[in-house]
């Protein structure tokens, strides 16, 4: 997803975004920058605020606090101008299942101001790029999830946007369909892509990644750099008495272990050397032991002290949905 072109200017600059649904703060002083041409991922569990951030950036809900510049335009004052250069793909499908693929693209094109021969040419180009030409007359409701997603991406790219926002767009897609989706997006190397995800492998492909938790940015940077910060290796021990084992490990081997549920985690450059010693000294109490290179899961855990758990898609609180903002 990387774009290694000329010196980059920022496609998006956000400073101090705070957003609340009534009393509940969904975003708290969120700031970040995304260079033009980058693919920037927002990774976080349910309730981390990434969907709220997406709704703000896609101009669906107005800013409450903070400043956002997108493509050099002020989000608070120039949202319509931003929308004319923006492509958006939602987690829930935004295509009409009762219309054909071509009809969906046609209506999508008319809504962004395309018409006549230009529109027809763009539709043909998008159908070709998405390998959808032979399905153009099929009703979208008859397509598989992966094909529908390709229609969505095609619709989003019809107007040749400068910036694309994807909200959990790959949720429910198999790896092949996800690859198709990204290959369509990568055709234009100058395109800036902001995407929310809870898939670690997808997030690891981003040029830049922001980890969100409870409305805060807890880490940001290149995925590889973030993982390097954790250390060279991660040793994970599962034990029924994890909490009491932690101080004993500290006492015996001088290592700091983090307790998460019934698991102890130790990270560092040479933690593999501890394995035989731990097995010899505490073997009877350890139920499972694993050694691995750090993942984004480990980054999240290190930054928040919590496991990254996804239960269901982010949803607005019932009362929040009714509240005017």
């Amino acid at each position: 997803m990387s774009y290694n072109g000329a010196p980059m200017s920022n496609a998006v600059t956000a400073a101090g975004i705070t957003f609340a649904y009534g009393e509940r703060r969904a975003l708290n002083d969120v700031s970040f920058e995304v260079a033009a041409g980058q693919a920037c991922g927002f990774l976080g569990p349910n309730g981390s605020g990434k969907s709220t951030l997406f709704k703000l950036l896609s101009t669906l809900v107005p800013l409450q606090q903070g400043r956002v510049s997108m493509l050099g335009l002020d989000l608070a004052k120039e949202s319509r101008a931003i929308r004319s250069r923006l492509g958006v793909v939602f987690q829930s499908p935004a295509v009409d299942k009762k219309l054909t693929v071509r009809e969906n693209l046609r209506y999508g094109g008319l809504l962004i101001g395309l018409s006549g021969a230009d529109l027809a040419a763009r539709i043909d180009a998008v159908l070709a790029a998405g390998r959808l030409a032979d399905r153009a007359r099929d009703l979208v409701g008859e397509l598989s999830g992966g094909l529908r997603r390709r229609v969505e991406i095609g619709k989003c790219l019809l107007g040749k946007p400068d910036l694309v926002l994807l909200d959990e767009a790959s949720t429910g897609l198999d790896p092949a369909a996800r690859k198709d989706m990204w290959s369509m997006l990568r055709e234009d190397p100058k395109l800036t892509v902001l995407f929310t995800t809870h898939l670690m492998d997808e997030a690891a492909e981003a040029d830049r990644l922001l980890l969100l938790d409870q409305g805060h940015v807890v880490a940001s940077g290149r995925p590889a750099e973030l993982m390097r910060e954790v250390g060279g290796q991660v040793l994970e021990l599962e034990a029924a008495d994890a909490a009491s084992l932690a101080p004993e490990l500290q006492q015996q081997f001088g290592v700091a272990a983090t307790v998460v549920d019934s698991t102890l985690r130790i990270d560092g450059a040479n933690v593999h050397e501890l394995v035989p010693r731990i097995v010899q000294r505490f073997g009877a109490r350890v139920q499972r032991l694993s050694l691995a290179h750090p993942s984004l899961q480990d980054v999240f855990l290190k930054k928040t002290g919590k496991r990254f758990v996804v239960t269901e898609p982010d949803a607005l609180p019932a009362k929040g949905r009714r509240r005017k903002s």
Partner: protein
Amino acid sequence: MRAVLALWHREIVRFLRDRPRLTGSLLQPIVFWALFSGALHGSFKPGGMDYGQYFFVGTLAMITLFTAIFATITVIEDRKEGFLQGVLVSPVPRLAIALGKILGGASLGLGLAVIFLLLAPLAGVSLSFDRVMLGLGVLALLALAVTGLGFALAWLMDSTAGYHGIMMLFLMPMLLLSGAFFPMESAHPVLAWVRFVNPMTYGVGALRHAFQGEVPGVPSFSVCMIGTVLFAAATFALGALVVNRRSVRDVV
């Protein structure tokens, strides 16, 4: 304008492709008219005319109202199915969304009313070219008014069930107390007052003037037209107001 036409066209295409909805919309007013006029034939002669003739105009008003209800319910479906948020993030002004949906629903109501008009000879309603032209104008205005109202209400609703509840609570009484089903001039004083403030009274009255000439107990044609124009203007303004308010409930 292209966006308005696109949204309008989509409403028509979706309606024509939805066979059950198409069948129901075409047959329901005919069944209603046949049942009511058959059941009350001979026992109820409002204004001295046969009930089938009287209820013919009422059925036209009912068609515009019911079509508006079913057409604007798609606002809630579009939101739930995600289509609406796709439109909201396009550069289209929100007013164009309201206009496209309202024109779409009103066109369907008008189209169905025109089909029902073909049954006028069966109902014993004699139509001249002038009457039909005037009647179509009034029908278009009334269809815009009730679709605008339905749009504004649907925009504020989260569930189709809730929308149906509100429709039954407000719009059905509006239709019943408009003179569409029965004359209201000898109604209880409270209902007579309700009839006075009920905007459907003027729409139905204008339709009676257009298709049946002077009917006792109906306000004058000019009063009916002013009332209907104001009704349409008010509901369109309401639709524009609700659609222009960005809120977190706009999204799925």
